[in-house]
């Protein structure tokens, strides 16, 4: 044998040692991050840059100047969008955190009831969901009309309209971002810190203000970002409640006008505003990042009964449950009502199961459902893998360009779905390096890819928030016990992040199933997603069958939620079983 084989293994060993064990070295972050950054560059950033180029393609920065002239639609739209987004963050924050606090820290009659339905709003199909709000709370809605009949007034009572209507929809559909983030964080927090504050004489409100909320910062920041960006890019709600001076509406209108550069300008401004908000939040969070410094692990606090609310609680729970279920019930009502039987009446006058028969007897009735399930699951899986890694990199590793990576991920969430889809089409209508030379357009893969790009931020944010609460010394302990970086990462860090990851994955899945605006531009006849199927029904005003499809979607999402709930409880169940052995 020559010298080659003898030196090779040692070089090889050196290399593997570097790759496998070098998690501490300065360049490890780059090794980890480089592929992620490439993916983001190819799938997200590059297409977005194209948007910007388009916006300045015709008359340079003139389009942007419109945002600074006081009378223009542009400025008003920007302001309206900002106001709606900020108000949505505030409202969702209050509702979501309050819910998390109530459900995670108190035990009262009816708690389980609310808990079972708390995520219903997240399961609402976007298109039909928005309609159901209209049928509930607007001028033509059940509630105002019922109140009108009750009080015998001339006009519907308590009808939501315009921005107020948009905010109702936003609050209702987006508070789960806050609820999920806050409850994951509350569960992961060292309760003894809270106890210390009580011991020092602080009352409940003060403890909240000075200890709990600051400790929840990463979760709140993450939720705020998601809500802010979702509101900013929200389209259906302003559309249905007739608020047309918003950024997204202007993008649509300008595209209809054929003014593509202007539409791109709006999209670019939307992106810039989101980036600015992201940087602001990062800065804010950075100043308050912390890790629990307690020694050992303290007991989870037993839930205590609130003496005052004991009687109020069941009533309030039933009310809350009704509110939570109302939109789904409305969809059900529509699904079971006969065509034309519901006009000025408060509720429909004739019922039928015809709508369900129609969609179920159709030859390819289940195909959209299966398609959506398959594509969303695929995309969610990819989101989980990439999102968790990026979250880890951004939170735990020090490297140049951390903020850029963060922005790269989030930007896709900030832009309207249409823009993302068009970017993807332009990028992948011919083969390129990121698609292994394949043209993805017209294939199955383009849709999961779009979902991946759009919903990666959900998994990334949720994971990142829960990672913020995990003591790095746990990972160190695992490494010390001989676990490689990967192993420690997988069975310690990721396992502890799991509640957050599941939350993110759930959100990604639900949004994937409901995604319409991007899907409609890239679906093929073999990948018709459920949202397109619903929309086709809506388009031909078969609102009953659309609602029936909507019910199927709600059911599908519920099944998945139930499974993920079991997954999350898996660990807990194991230790509960363990406890039984000791008896």
């Amino acid at each position, binding site marked *: 044998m020559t010298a080659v084989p003898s030196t090779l293994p040692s070089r090889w060993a050196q290399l593997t040692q570097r790759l496998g064990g070098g998690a501490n070295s300065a360049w490890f972050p780059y090794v980890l991050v480089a592929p992620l950054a490439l993916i983001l560059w190819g799938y997200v950033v590059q297409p977005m840059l194209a948007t910007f180029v388009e916006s300045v393609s015709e008359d340079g920065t003139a389009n942007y100047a419109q945002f600074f002239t006081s009378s223009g639609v542009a400025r008003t739209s920007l302001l309206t969008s900002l106001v709606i987004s900020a108000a949505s963050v505030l409202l969702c924050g209050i509702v979501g955190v309050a819910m998390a606090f109530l459900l995670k820290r108190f035990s009262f009659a009816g708690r389980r009831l609310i808990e079972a339905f708390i995520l219903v709003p997240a399961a609402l199909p976007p298109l039909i969901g928005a309609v159901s709000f209209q049928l509930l709370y607007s001028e033509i809605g059940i509630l105002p009309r019922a109140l009108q009949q009750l009080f015998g007034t001339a006009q519907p009572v308590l009808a939501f309209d315009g921005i107020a209507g948009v905010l109702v929809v936003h609050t209702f559909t987006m508070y789960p971002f806050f609820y999920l983030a806050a409850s994951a964080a509350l569960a992961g927090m*060292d309760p003894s810190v809270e106890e210390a504050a009580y011991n020092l004489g602080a009352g409940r409100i003060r403890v909240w203000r000075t200890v709990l909320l600051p400790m929840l910062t990463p979760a709140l920041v993450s939720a705020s970002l998601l809500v802010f960006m979702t509101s900013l890019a929200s389209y259906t709600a302003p559309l249905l409640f007739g608020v047309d001076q918003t950024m997204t509406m202007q993008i649509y209108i300008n595209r209809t006008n054929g003014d593509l550069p202007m539409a791109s300008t709006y999209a670019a401004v939307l992106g810039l505003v989101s980036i600015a908000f992201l940087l602001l939040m990062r800065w804010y969070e950075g100043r308050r990042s912390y890790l629990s410094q307690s020694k050992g692990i303290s007991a989870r606090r037993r839930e205590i009964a609130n003496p005052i609310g004991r009687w109020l609680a069941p009533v309030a729970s039933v009310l809350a449950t009704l509110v939570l279920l109302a939109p789904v019930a409305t969809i059900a009502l529509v699904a079971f009502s006969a065509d034309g039987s519901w006009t000025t009446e408060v509720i429909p006058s004739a019922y039928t199961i015809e709508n369900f028969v129609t969609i179920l007897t159709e030859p390819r009735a289940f195909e959209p459902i299966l398609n959506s399930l398959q594509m969303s699951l695929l995309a969610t899986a990819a989101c989980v893998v990439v999102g968790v890694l990026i979250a880890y990199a951004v939170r735990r590793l020090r490297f140049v360009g951390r903020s850029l990576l963060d922005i790269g991920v989030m930007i896709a969430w900030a832009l309207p779905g249409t823009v993302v889809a068009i970017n993807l089409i332009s990028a992948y209508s011919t083969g390129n390096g990121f698609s292994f030379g394949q043209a993805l357009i017209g294939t199955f893969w383009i849709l999961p890819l779009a979902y991946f790009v759009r919903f990666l931020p959900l998994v990334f944010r949720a994971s990142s928030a829960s990672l913020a609460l995990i003591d790095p010394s746990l990972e160190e302990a695992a490494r010390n016990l001989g676990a490689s970086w990967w192993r420690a990462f997988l069975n310690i860090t990721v396992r502890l992040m799991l509640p957050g990851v599941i939350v993110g994955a759930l959100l990604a899945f639900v949004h994937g199933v409901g995604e319409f605006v991007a899907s409609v531009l890239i679906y093929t006849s073999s990948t018709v997603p459920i949202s397109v199927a619903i929309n086709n029904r809506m388009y031909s005003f078969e609102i009953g069958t659309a609602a029936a499809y909507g019910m199927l979607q709600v059911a599908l999402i519920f099944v998945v939620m139930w499974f993920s709930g079991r997954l999350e409880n898996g660990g807990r169940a194991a230790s509960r079983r363990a406890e039984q052995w000791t008896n």
Partner: protein
Amino acid sequence: MIDVELESVSKRFARSGEAAAVDDVNLTIGAGEFFTLLGPSGCGKTTTLRMVAGFYFPSDGHIRFGGKDVTRLAPNKRETGMVFQNYALFPHMTVAQNVAYGLKVRKVGRADAARRVAEALAEVHLDGYGPRRIDQLSGGQQQRVALARALVIRPRMLLLDEPLSNLDAKLREETRAEIRRIQRESGTTSIYVTHDQAEAMAMSDRIAVMRSGQVQQVGTPREVYHQPANAFVARFIGRSNVLSLPVAAVEATRVQVVLPGGGQVHAGAPEGHGLRVGDSALVSARPEYISVVSPADSDAIGGRVAAVEFTGMTTHLTVDVDTGDIDTQVTVAAVDAPERIGVGDRVGLRLPADRLWVVRP
């Protein structure tokens, strides 16, 4: 005046089907008293303290402060200052903010608070650490911040859960003197949990020795040291040899027992000990009272040195006694030329007549 009273307090943890963590504990602690809970790891000290602080509700029994039932009073209404075993520092605040928290809650003026924080940090030797983040401190420094945070508010009652466990001996001594000074000056009732028996002896007015959730003995340091209630207390407080010896004669407060070598010696006994001649009595003999003599000595017990352990001030000898199967362990003061005796040497041991004590099993 009784300040704190625990009446038949028990705590069972809901899901653990095991014995109660705290089991029918009755304690009365006087105002201004420095009271210590001592006991092996897992015996229920922290659980007891947390019930006093209001973080656990007793499964049974009542807790009273100055006669008032506080069993279910909210923790923030109890005016106790607690040092948590796990520190429980606020990770999002600096050292100074942590210490200032209780003052802020009490609406102490800005300047006044700053002064008191600086003082409290000086008391725990952390001057100048005020602006540091908590995660930039060493373990011992964190513990001192936790202590300063509890001391600075001058609470009506101090609850200290092993507040010095991560400090070095020097600092621990200084700090415990500091705690004692503050406690005495302000007459603060204090409940102290420690593993360090020397610390418990040096600081406490009274000590409660616990085991598996139950109180074994309550008494002054000298009482629990010299007159342990039972074999467990004797063995737990300091080192002690508990020998089972036949009783030769009985009196009201002492009995005469027969030594392994055949000699007889008097041992103190609690009143109502109920022993009779011919019974076997458990006799506690503190190592430091046993003297090492020549193996040839007539009334000494012969034995062979099994281990020698140098601890600085004293050297511990473990001696396998010839007669009987009891291992007797002996401590010899270091001044007694410790290097003279090695493992395997034969020695004679003499038990002190006036320092033996009969304990219950």
